[in-house]
């Protein structure tokens, strides 16, 4: 059982790590948002799964607290993360940051 917990935590840390690398390597703000906000959300899902499984295996009275709080943290993260990414991307485009290496930019012609 402990191997499954390690595997879940490892997958989570791997995706968070790749998100951090993408933050450095990608060329502009939009592609960086892709790597940074969403790989970390996905990694956090796996880390929370690992916590839940750990609490399930080593069950005690206090496990309720840890499980509930990590689930609530995950729900808050899933709701706020796309909203934040959207807000940053829209603010960046409105203040004149154009996507680098862009194939197409349909949003540029929109009057605002």
């Amino acid at each position, binding site marked *: 059982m402990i191997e499954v917990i390690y595997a879940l935590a490892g997958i989570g840390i791997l995706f968070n790590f790749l998100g951090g690398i993408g933050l450095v390597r990608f060329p502009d703000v939009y592609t960086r948002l892709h790597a940074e906000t969403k790989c970390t959300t*996905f990694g956090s899902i796996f880390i929370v799964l690992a916590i839940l499984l750990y609490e399930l295996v080593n069950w005690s009275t206090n496990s309720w607290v840890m499980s509930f709080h990590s689930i609530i943290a995950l729900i808050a993260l899933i709701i706020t993360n796309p909203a934040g990414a959207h807000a940053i991307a*829209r603010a960046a485009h409105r203040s004149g940051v154009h996507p680098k290496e862009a194939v197409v*930019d349909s949003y540029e012609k929109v009057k605002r």
Partner: protein
Amino acid sequence: MKAFVITSAACFIFYLVLTAGSGAIGLWSIYEIIAGLLLSIIVGFVSQKYVGGRMSKKALDPMRWMRFFVYLIYPLFWEMLKSNVDVAIRVITMDIHPGIVKIDSKQNNDIGVTLLANSITLTPGTLTVDVDEKNNLYVHWIDVKKKQPKTEDVCGKMADWVRRITQ
């Protein structure tokens, strides 16, 4: 009155979840229960007209909630899994063709557009930048395959799922 009761009950349940494990009555201590009751009654009284006015009967339909939870697992989590691996590979190989494309969201109400836009943003590779009055979404796509894509090219079957949940 109905809105007041529903809001207070939701607040009280949320408070109990947050303070689980604090004492001997069930999982809670008597102080936490009393404080939670008082606070949720105050919050329900203050916010009843904001919550109650916007609540539609569709929110109480259990079939919609069933579909919503199925939606969270099959299309959404599966798409996240596939495209997270895809973006992780792109981080290493730097093989990107970014661009902002315009798609028709196929939705006719605000909750549907919000749910679809957040789902699109949660699947890596696509990021919702803006929405206009006709519910068209402007999506930043990390690997542009077509310059005028259809809805299915960007978000797969998610648009139809969201329409079935919210309409």
